């Protein structure tokens, strides 16, 4: 079964630096998505990249997808204290209609002021 796995598991950087998180998966996908979760809160959808896309930008976020390596990266530029959260990648299979997501373990990102 497909599985999203992020690395590193934890990342601590200084405010203003860039943060890069990686995700690998095992089987063919339709889309790959990144979510943020603040402590004790729900999942906030950040960005979706389709299997035929290689790079996507949204504000300070940049996502890349390499389907040949079955991997994706999330880059947050000019990090802020408010970016402190856990970040998850989630993959869905090649299907239509309902989108069953498989989540990775997540990366805990801490931005130090």
């Amino acid at each position, binding site marked *: 079964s497909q599985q999203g796995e992020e690395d590193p598991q934890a990342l601590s950087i200084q405010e203003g630096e860039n943060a890069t998180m990686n995700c690998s998966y095992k089987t063919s996908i339709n889309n790959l*998505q990144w979510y943020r979760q603040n402590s004790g809160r729900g999942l906030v*959808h950040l960005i979706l990249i389709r299997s035929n896309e290689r790079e996507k930008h949204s504000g300070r976020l940049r996502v890349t997808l390499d389907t040949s390596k079955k991997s994706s990266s999330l880059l947050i530029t000019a990090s802020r204290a408010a970016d402190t959260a856990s970040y*998850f990648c989630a993959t869905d299979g090649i299907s239509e209609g*309902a989108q069953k*997501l498989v*989540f990775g*373990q997540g990366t805990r990102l801490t931005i130090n002021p």
Partner: protein
Amino acid sequence: EPEVTQTPSHQVTQMGQEVILRCVPISNHLYFYWYRQILGQKVEFLVSFYNNEISEKSEIFDDQFSVERPDGSNFTLKIRSTKLEDSAMYFCASSEYSRAPYFGDGTRLSIL
């Protein structure tokens, strides 16, 4: 911006009791989901629901679990006889056809 709402935010229940978690999906969405996250672990898919029936369920979603859309707006998850290991955050989500799901803030379920 439309959002998925879940109630209650925290539910404490004695082991063996039935519990119902409630969700109001985004109004024009047709697909509904439940996920759970045991503390410190990854988010796991439980079930998807479309056209008033389950479209897919995971191994976790055994006979103790059921889902229902009792009216045009609510989507519920029932756990018939709760166990200690059911303690987790339960997330409801909804989506349009082949689009990314939107998640609610979750219900923290604590089984004593």
